């Protein structure tokens, strides 16, 4: 099953696609600045620049650097990582429902977090991140190995099915713990809704190199992903080794989505919708899809976070909920209007 999406055949030429990418990048920069200015105490653009460049320890500068900057960075990092890894997943599996969550990444991270909290009575900061990342990575590697071993002939389908199985298994385990342990439920319920509030600069900066590495590797892989998205047979016919490149792609997904989920919780919906929207806009060439996804995903998460904070005047409002509230109707509209009826 390929991913028959938009009616548009080609990205419409490099200059146009490049222009659109530049436009999206400008929008992203603007919303990042907006995110730094917004809050219960509005801070002017000049003060924000001062805080970033000439930090003087005043109350407002502290507010920007310790509260709003980490939050904005977390949103940008998580958004771009999830969107790119979602695009890779859909290319690799050829299933339009594929998202990083399908590798068991969300379920693995959630289970690891819940297990660590139940056993140790609480965790926060960087150890918490490592627990989530380790859980996500372990689950994803298991899913990949199972998919590869158990279904050598039709590996994409095997991956999808074993992912569903492992994710269900871990989710059941998590809810079994939560049903009996009220204090852990209380501690993780905000995280499971997906939230970027209360992140520290150390957490955001600590994750950045991993996500940066993952993104650059993904961009290098663009051409091979396009070939992979045609399906294993076509890839082989074109002289590509689908097994090798599929493995490489999955490793990148683990790196990207694992870090993102550790940072912002399971806001996997970004990884599902952004690639679809991008494909509807610019076509099937992954050399363009991936950068568009990176910018678009970051834009979606930052904008959703700004909107949730300003409209609801609640700084703790989980961004995962806002994303779904904005993203889902848009996604439905696109699917309704742009999808060819002969799919």
């Amino acid at each position, binding site marked *: 099953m390929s991913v028959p999406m938009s009616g548009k055949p080609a990205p419409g030429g490099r200059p146009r696609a490049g222009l659109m990418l530049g436009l999206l990048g400008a929008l992203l920069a603007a919303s990042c600045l907006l995110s730094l200015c917004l809050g219960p105490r509005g801070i002017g653009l000049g003060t924000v620049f001062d805080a970033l460049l000439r930090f003087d320890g005043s109350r407002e500068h502290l507010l920007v650097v310790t509260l709003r900057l980490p939050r904005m960075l977390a949103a940008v990092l998580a958004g771009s990582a999830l969107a790119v890894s979602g695009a890779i997943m859909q290319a690799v599996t050829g299933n339009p429902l594929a998202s990083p969550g399908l590798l068991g990444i969300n379920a693995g991270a959630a289970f690891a977090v819940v297990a660590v909290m139940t056993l140790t009575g609480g965790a926060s900061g960087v150890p918490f991140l490592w627990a989530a990342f380790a859980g996500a990575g372990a689950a994803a590697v298991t899913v990949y190995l199972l998919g590869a071993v158990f279904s050598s002939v039709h590996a994409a389908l095997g991956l999808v099915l074993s992912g569903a199985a492992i994710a269900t298994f871990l989710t059941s385990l998590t809810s079994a713990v939560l049903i*009996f342990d009220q204090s852990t439920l209380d501690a993780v319920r905000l995280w499971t809704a997906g939230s970027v509030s209360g992140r520290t600069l150390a957490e955001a900066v600590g994750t950045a190199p991993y996500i940066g590495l993952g993104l650059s590797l993904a961009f290098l892989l663009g051409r091979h992903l396009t070939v992979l998205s045609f399906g294993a047979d076509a890839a082989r016919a074109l002289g590509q080794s689908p097994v090798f490149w599929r493995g490489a792609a999955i490793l990148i997904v683990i790196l990207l989505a694992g870090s993102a989920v550790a940072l912002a919780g399971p806001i996997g919906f970004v990884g599902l919708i952004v690639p679809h929207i991008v494909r509807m806009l610019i076509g099937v060439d992954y050399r363009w899809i991936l950068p568009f996804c990176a910018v678009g995903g970051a834009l979606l998460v930052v904008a959703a976070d700004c909107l949730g904070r300003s409209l609801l005047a609640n700084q703790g409002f989980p961004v995962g909920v806002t994303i779904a509230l904005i993203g889902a109707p848009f996604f439905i509209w696109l699917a309704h209007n742009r999808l060819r009826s002969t799919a």
Partner: protein
Amino acid sequence: MTQPSARQAARKAGTLFRKKPRPRPGSGAADRLRFSILCLTLALLLAALFAASLALGDVPVSWRALAAMLGGGSDVSPDARMIVVDLRLPRVLLGALVGMALAIAGTISIAIMRNPLAEPGVLGINGGAAVGAMVVIVVLRDPPVFLLQASGFFGALALAAAVYLLSWRGGTASLRIVLIGVGLSALTGAVTSLLAATGDLAAVQRAMIWLAGSVYDASLLKVERLLSWLILPAALTLALARELDLIAFGDGTAKSLGQPVERVRALMILLCTVISGAAVAVSGLIGFVGLLAPHIARRLAGPVHLRILPVAALVGACLVTAADLLGRLVIAPAQVPAGIVTGLLGAPFFIYLLWGRRHGRG
């Protein structure tokens, strides 16, 4: 496990399944005999699970007493009778019915969506029911049972209707239904997690137990109602099994074979919603059965839906009954909801199925 269309194409190409094509089902007496034996075996397994569920538990009842009770004997202690007839029997029956319903609904949705992952939840049924139940539990704290069930059922119905209507654009298409289902499920998921993140902690925990799916709150009245609700749609599905075979081949093929694809798809979605919505309303979200049972049934009975449907129903009944039994026994006196057990045990089993596929037995 694959959609028939893909399997058909692969068979022509001779790459995916190297084994010889199965003889056309229903073409021989031996084949019919094999199917009867299969059904009989599953029915016996279900009966054994029934007996075990009635006898085992916090207060074990001896097999002899159980036999006497079911035979109408009078030399049984009233306590044991109360435990078996009033507590365990409704629960076992309800579990089996829910399992059948989920399996039939899953078979329908996998066939019409042509996606091996399309359990009824894709139609928004689970999400709708979850929001309905969650709102009632978190807002009212201690809602009456009938209100909880009604809100679950109508939530499921409303979401399924929304998915169908939104994907209507001079006709529907499987992929559009799936994508819009995903979009709406994300919306309902957001509402659910918002309620979970902000609601009263004890209420949220109760809602989580409901979401995990269990049949602990059973009564004979519930069983009767569910049964009378399910009979008609289930019979209709079985009568239209042939249409499922056709539509699973793809819109183009089905149309050229003379099927009114849109009408069939609409009817099938309605049946799927009515069946699984009712199951979800009484038991919560017992996951994985709607996915696992159809896949097992396809492995056992071949690709014809007239045979998949009854086998899937039996398999689903066995799965939920066994899961509930295990959930009651494992860490007694605490009870693990059946939905958690199906998730924990169903997943490795599903992987085992994949393993079997690799060795060309399916």
